[in-house]
């Protein structure tokens, strides 16, 4: 996985709450057996009209936000299904950071597996960031993972929390499976023990 360090880019505002995974990527696009190429259908039903033409009113279709690398979204972002196609599409579009007041659990986990940084901020900070994101192409925020800081286009600095293990993996682009396989002997030991305690499993 690519190492995550710092993002300096345009932040797009999506204040709607409860943006679900069906909105992020509708099921018609889940029929792929690949991980790549989904950016074009990110937010498909909001982004395109029924005839396939772009909806000019949708934030990521506006000239200022077409290259957005950060998304500032409403509460409970990513609720719904476990489809990893949602973060795959976000990543493929070019968005590397999603900021909200809360995320759905599975989506939140899935982001880290794909080098996307989901950041949870307090309501008061969310208001500041959303306002900043509304400034269009001038809304260039900086997200610095090492320092755990977001800097708005006005220079306001907002700190954020992140699980240390997840931070370490993102910063170093570590592959979870490889890391876990280093602990193979613990798994062997557990299997031996559990196999005796619960042989019916």
């Amino acid at each position, binding site marked *: 996985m690519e190492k995550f360090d710092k993002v300096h880019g345009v932040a797009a505002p999506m*204040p*709607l*709450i*409860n943006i*679900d995974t*069906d*909105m992020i990527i*509708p*099921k*018609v696009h*889940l*029929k*792929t*057996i*690949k*991980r790549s190429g989904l950016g074009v259908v990110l937010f498909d*039903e909001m982004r395109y009209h*029924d005839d396939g033409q772009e909806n000019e009113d949708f934030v990521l279709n506006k000239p200022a936000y077409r290259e957005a690398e950060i998304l500032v979204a*409403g*509460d*409970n972002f990513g*609720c*719904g*299904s*476990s*489809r*990893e196609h949602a*973060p795959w599409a976000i990543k493929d579009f070019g968005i590397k950071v999603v900021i909200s007041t*809360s*995320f*759905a*659990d*599975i989506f939140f*986990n*899935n982001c880290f*597996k*794909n080098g996307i940084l989901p950041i949870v901020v307090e309501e008061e900070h969310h208001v500041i960031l959303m306002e900043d994101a509304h400034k269009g192409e001038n809304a260039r925020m900086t997200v610095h993972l090492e320092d755990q800081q977001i800097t708005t286009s006005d220079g306001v600095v907002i700190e954020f929390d992140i*699980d*240390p*293990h997840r931070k370490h993996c993102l910063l170093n682009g570590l592959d*979870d*499976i490889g*890391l*876990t*396989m280093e*602990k*193979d002997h*613990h*798994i062997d*030991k*557990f*299997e031996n023990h*559990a196999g005796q*305690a*619960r*042989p*019916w*499993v």
Partner: protein
Amino acid sequence: MSPKTLYDKIWDAHVAHEADDGTCLLYIDRHLVHEVTSPQAFEGLRMAGRNVRAPEKTIAVPDHNVPTTPDRVHGIENPESRIQVEALDKNAKDFGIHYYPVHDVRQGIVHIVGPEQGWTLPGMTVVCGDSHTATHGAFGALAHGIGTSEVEHVLATQTLIQKKSKNMKVEITGKLQPGVTAKDITLAVIGETGTAGGTGYVIEYCGEAIRNLSMEGRMTVCNMAIEGGARAGLIAPDDTTFEYVKGRPHAPKGAQWEAAMDWWKTLYTDEGAHFDKVITLRGEDIAPVVTWGTSPEDVLPITATVPHPNDFEGGKVDAARRSIEYMGLEAGQKLSDVEIDTVFIGSCTNGRIEDLRAAAEILKGKKIKDGMRAMVVPGSGLVRAQAEEEGLADIFKDAGFEWRLAGCSMCLAMNPDQLQPGERCAATSNRNFEGRQGRGGRTHLLSPAMAAAAAITGRLTDVRELM
């Protein structure tokens, strides 16, 4: 020893390794796999030259993509769907995992097949690349959905990297009123907590009304724990659980059954154990409910009216306005006046035998409204066979319902069963998101009995009027 919750006990029994910062490797007892979220995971294994660590604990079945019409015996027409199902056929064979192919009578929705075959047992950890894995919590198993990267992780290592969630108790006291079902309980809870109310928690459902539910009802309740944002939902196993499990093909037998029972009987929350959040609802207060909006938290009794966006606060004002517009409703409109054109009975939420019995009970000797499109999609081939044996299939067919083969069907519209733009469906499934059942389609979630009532009258209907 300090008192533990049921979740604490199952968690503790499955930690294979704990790092200093509390990050754990949680051992997975059962890994369920379907065709949509697994191809990239198997591909990842192949690219890295890795194997499935515990194929004997891995069970696969195609469900999301498969058509539910009888002509599916001739193959799947949609090329993309066919490729996904064929990929699962191949992956199951190449990696030697248990498999129920499309033509097997045991095929069905993964969350119905697992319990039916006795793969799901009390005290287990169960995962699947599907958010409705929460269903298996009904057995007192810690069960939750995972993404495809985690599917690959479990295939390769039989573990997940996890941090423990907080404990939440949802108690439903007392008895349910006639016409009120497990679906009404689970929707009412989400209406109370909101779709993010359970985020960060594992819920244990308890109380008299939960105890009195069958396993089918308990699965319905736990199935929608995810719609409340929780990682998982749990119900402590009891005699109802043990009776359901006993004799299933993959349930323990003989001495192993006795040994299992000894452990299973310890799987309850100890007196005085700590819950970080507690919600209590009176069973008597729960009415038959329906959803009016595009979030499962948009729940109201069928006797209510469509709310006004200004009834809400914060971001929900805009969200409610958007929902009401999408749903083509008017604030103040009586929910029981909302006309529908489609009825869908099925899904991992309500596609079990008891659900079909409840719907058939209402439909017996009646006809669906003229022009109504109504379908029953049993959750598995075995549910279908049982319903045919019990005469339920004839009741549905006589009433005017289509009697389908097992699959996820119209719950998520990845297969030919879909709504057209503007069509309005009374659905026993779990999500009413925009476009969930087809682009522009409108979904009202409700119980199987309420869905049957709506099919007869052609509008959302209080089932108690037909009882």
